[in-house]
């Protein structure tokens, strides 16, 4: 699905988090979104997913204006996101965290669960099979009955990715998928993302600070600074861009000069 952000601005109090930002994520790509801290990447994610309402500008999914659509409705258009700090359901088991996700569950209606239990069981059987598959893929099968709150940071990140795989959504916003995940697993995760994009037509937009991962996965890469797009191109192109270097270095130097 094509994500278009048109002239979006958002301020929190006196902080202009996003200013006149315009960008497009083309369908079928793994688009990287990088930039120094405070560049507005996460705010932009929140705006695209519908968790934050922009002060100005529009968001379009495949040409449809979704700016006024609440986040749960955007999910049903095929858009799903993960969170920078993983949000798992701590007092539910790892497997329940996954089973929750698939839509069209008849058992989510009270009267169906009271009066038509076999329908609930039938759908749950499909969901259980898929959940076991995803758990195996992520190496979490042995933890299926553990409470999600007991997982390590990296495992929670994986569980969040598992929720993406449980959803029917093909457009995915990943907020730092690599943070806290060990190298071996990260390699597998990257391979999985590549495969999904290439073979199954997924679209990814990835915020990531791990430049090795960005270099491996993302094309194109969009660089944000001070709330707006600074550069766009292949990883090698943006890496050599003088403005990009200045944004990263300038920010760092500026911060150091402060005290």
């Amino acid at each position: 699905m094509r994500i278009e952000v048109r002239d979006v601005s958002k301020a929190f109090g006196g902080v202009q988090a996003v200013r006149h930002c315009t960008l497009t994520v083309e369908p079928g790509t793994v688009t990287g979104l990088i930039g120094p801290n405070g560049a507005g990447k996460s705010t932009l994610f929140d705006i695209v997913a519908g968790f934050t309402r922009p002060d100005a500008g529009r968001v379009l999914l495949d040409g449809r204006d979704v700016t006024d659509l609440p986040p749960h409705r955007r999910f049903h258009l095929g858009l799903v996101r993960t969170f920078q700090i993983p949000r798992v359901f701590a007092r539910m088991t790892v497997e329940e965290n996954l089973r929750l996700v698939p839509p069209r569950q008849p058992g989510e209606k009270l009267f169906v669960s009271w009066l038509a239990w076999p329908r609930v069981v039938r759908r749950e059987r499909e969901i259980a099979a898929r959940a076991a598959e995803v758990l195996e893929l992520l190496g979490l099968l042995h933890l299926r009955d553990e409470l999600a709150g007991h997982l390590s940071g990296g495992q929670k990140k994986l569980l969040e990715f598992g929720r993406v795989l449980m959803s029917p959504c093909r457009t995915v916003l990943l907020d730092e998928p690599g943070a806290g995940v060990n190298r071996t697993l990260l390699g597998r995760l990257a391979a999985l993302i590549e495969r999904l994009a290439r073979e199954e037509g997924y679209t990814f937009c990835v915020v990531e600070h791990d430049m090795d991962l960005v270099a491996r996965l993302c094309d194109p890469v969009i660089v944000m600074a001070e709330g707006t797009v600074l550069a766009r191109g292949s990883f090698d192109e943006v890496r050599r861009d003088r403005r990009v270097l200045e944004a990263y270095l300038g920010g760092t130097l500026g911060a150091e000069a402060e005290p």
Partner: protein
Amino acid sequence: MELVGLASFLVFFLTLAGIYALVTLGLNVQWGFAGQFDIGIAGFWAVGAYTTAILTTPPSPFHLGGFGMPFTVGAAAATLLAALVALAVGRICVDLRTDYLAIATIGIGEILRLVLKNEEWLTNGVRGIAGIPRPFADLGRTGQALAFLALVLAAIATVHALLERARRAPWGRVQRAIRDDETAVLAVGRDVRRFRLESFVLGAAVMGFAGAVHAHFVGFISPEAFDPLYTTFLVWVMLVVGGSGNNLGAILGAFAVWAIWSLAQFVTAWLPLEWAARAGALRVLLVGVLLQAVLLWRPQGLLPERPPPPVVRDERESR
């Protein structure tokens, strides 16, 4: 003779504890499943009690009706009206986060109580409604008491079965997920507002039903009976002691706390005269201390919540 007295006290005790167990099950839907901090229990309880009182008493010049309808109609209408009141209230304030919801529901509970106290044409005000018919009256004194107890126990079993099914179903899974992290539930496409409203209404409906059973048990209700201390506060203690989120825990907590509450009555009866006047306050103090002890040493309650067993299981082994 002693034994007969003891037995009839036991029946009385179990019936009243059972009514509390029903209310606690209702609160468990709102707080235990969904994490809604409802402090307006007294309000829904009273709506249920008054609804059935007005519908089932014989015609009276002192309040609306009565309409002389059977107990079953009264109880059904009480459940429905409590649900409708919760729906109206919920549409306004179910979006509020825990502490704000608590404030809003305290207010609404008190408003309902004041309406019952002041709208004399409707409820006979502070003088209350008497003569609420007791079901099974034709069975004689003992038979009636036993039959009513059986009715209460059957109601507990039915409500427990319905709520346990709801908890185990995907509906309950979404509720527990909302309790843990609302934002993440939105991210996977669930209309959090709808689910919150449903659990709020379901819990209130159970409270309203319990209120109706209570009214038919005591036969007389007045606004005094719905003092938050004896309703909202005690029910909260019951759920916390029994185990929030656990339906059996809610029932156990109700019986355990009601046992302590009732026994305290006997203990305070032996107190020297100058203390006897303070017996009521001592009872509350005792329950307060109990609550503190549970929160310190067993914060999850007597029966801690456990995730329900999966509806079906894919028996794949980890390699």
